[in-house]
């Protein structure tokens, strides 16, 4: 988003105009949709999120088209979906590098615009008010992104030995996360070794002993966990149940199933967890 300061008008926040998708004002149709989307979809019932104030959405004349129902998914909306999926899935989902990169880029550019406007003596009071709203939105999007990253870190730490032993799961990690899991694995391995295992008889030094009738020492994600999911795709193939039966997945319907059945649908984006 380039900001041309020689043109007064283009650097202004246009409170009364409907932002077009290509508009380079502070409100691309992106940020305020953060609120409106939560409201428009009752399935996002997490109170802590739905609770965030609607101030910015109500005070700014928003282009509501595309926010309710059919329209294309906005970046922020996509982040919200990935975040909720990640928090509800027992296993690590594929890393959304492109999405996170785009969000970071946008946060950065919004921040630059805010700084430019704040430092400009010609900025009107109305604009200062709008800048405040944008800053608030930015903070809230940062919160979602942070929560997304932290949720993944928490799972990575919980399942470190399992991830290190399973190349398939490692592919779901970003480079940064792969480095993290390696180093964290080394760290806990060394810690257990030094505090406990070194003092045990030599044949008991392994951290991954397998014995019959004993639960494994490596914690794996519980894929039998039941999850609620919402069908996004109009032409979603039916879901095959373990008993040989299958159920039809109609767009917009919500079902409850074991995570292992939902996994593949989640991967190709045809469902989302709720």
């Amino acid at each position, binding site marked *: 988003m380039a900001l041309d300061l020689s043109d007064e008008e283009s650097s202004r926040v246009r409170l009364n105009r409907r932002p077009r998708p290509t508009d380079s004002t502070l409100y691309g149709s992106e940020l305020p949709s953060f609120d409106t989307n939560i409201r428009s979809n009752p399935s996002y019932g997490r109170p*802590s*999120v739905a*609770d*965030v*104030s609607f101030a910015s959405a109500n005070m700014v004349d928003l282009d509501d088209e595309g926010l309710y129902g059919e329209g294309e998914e906005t970046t922020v909306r996509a982040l919200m979906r990935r975040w909720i999926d990640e928090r509800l899935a027992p296993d690590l989902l594929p890393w959304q590098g492109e999405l996170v990169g785009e969000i*970071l880029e946008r*946060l*950065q550019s919004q*921040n630059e615009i805010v700084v430019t406007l704040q430092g400009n003596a010609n900025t009107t009071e109305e604009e200062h008010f709008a800048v*405040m709203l944008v*800053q*608030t939105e930015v*903070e*809230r999007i*940062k*919160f*979602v*992104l*942070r*929560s997304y*990253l*932290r949720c993944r*870190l928490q799972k990575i*730490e919980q399942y470190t030995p399992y991830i290190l032993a399973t190349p398939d799961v490692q592919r779901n990690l970003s480079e*940064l996360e792969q*480095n*993290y899991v390696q*180093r*964290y694995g080394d*760290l*806990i391995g060394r*810690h*257990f070794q*030094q*505090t*406990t295992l070194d*003092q*045990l*008889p030599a044949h*008991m030094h392994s*951290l991954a*002993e397998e*014995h019959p009738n*004993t639960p494994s*020492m490596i914690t794996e994600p519980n894929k039998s966990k039941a999850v609620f999911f919402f069908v996004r795709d109009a032409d979603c193939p039916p879901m095959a149940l373990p008993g040989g039966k299958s159920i039809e997945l109609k767009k917009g319907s919500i079902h409850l199933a074991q995570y292992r059945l939902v996994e593949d649908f989640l991967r190709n984006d045809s469902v989302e967890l709720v």
Partner: protein
Amino acid sequence: MDSETRLFGDQAMTLVNEARRSNAAGTLSKYNDPLVRAVCREMRTLDTDLSRITSEYEIDDSQVPDGVMAAASFYHVALRRNKRCVLAYQNHRIEKLKELYWGAAGSLVHLLGDSEVRTRLSPHEVDFLRTYNEIVQEFRGDFEDILDVVGDVAIPPKELNVVVRVVRECGTIQTELGPIDFQKGQRFMVRRADIEQLITQGFLEIVR
């Protein structure tokens, strides 16, 4: 404890109970070094006994009497159980340490500077925290300037500015509006993002 009347695994069970109590109370108790050592010693003794029993029959195991077989299995199970118990205790400690670390907003100086916490840690655990801090900081560094990964993830921000009360003195802090000298008892209206860390670390409190 009288060693004569102690059963296999009693001490290991004590460790597990300690971990369980600590979880229920939400506090970190002192690292029980003597007990961990005692359990490991018990395991070494059991292992010596076990090898003595089995070594007599090593040549041809078809001749092992049922009684000896049962005793050997019993020793073996006791050993494995003890190992799991000690590791469970260590793992519980790690989880608690990480909880404290994130609770202190990733500030190791703040965490280890608290003498009350420090005395409860074993030297190995302090090392663990140091290395863990390195790993987390490296991860955090990648998002520098745009996003602080270590920030609060419990309550989504509802407003840009908050009114805070100073609970503990923390000196002069640079904020967007210039430096502020936080003195105990004072109230300030500040940018939330500027002082988030201080809230997590218990210096400031949000006034609602």
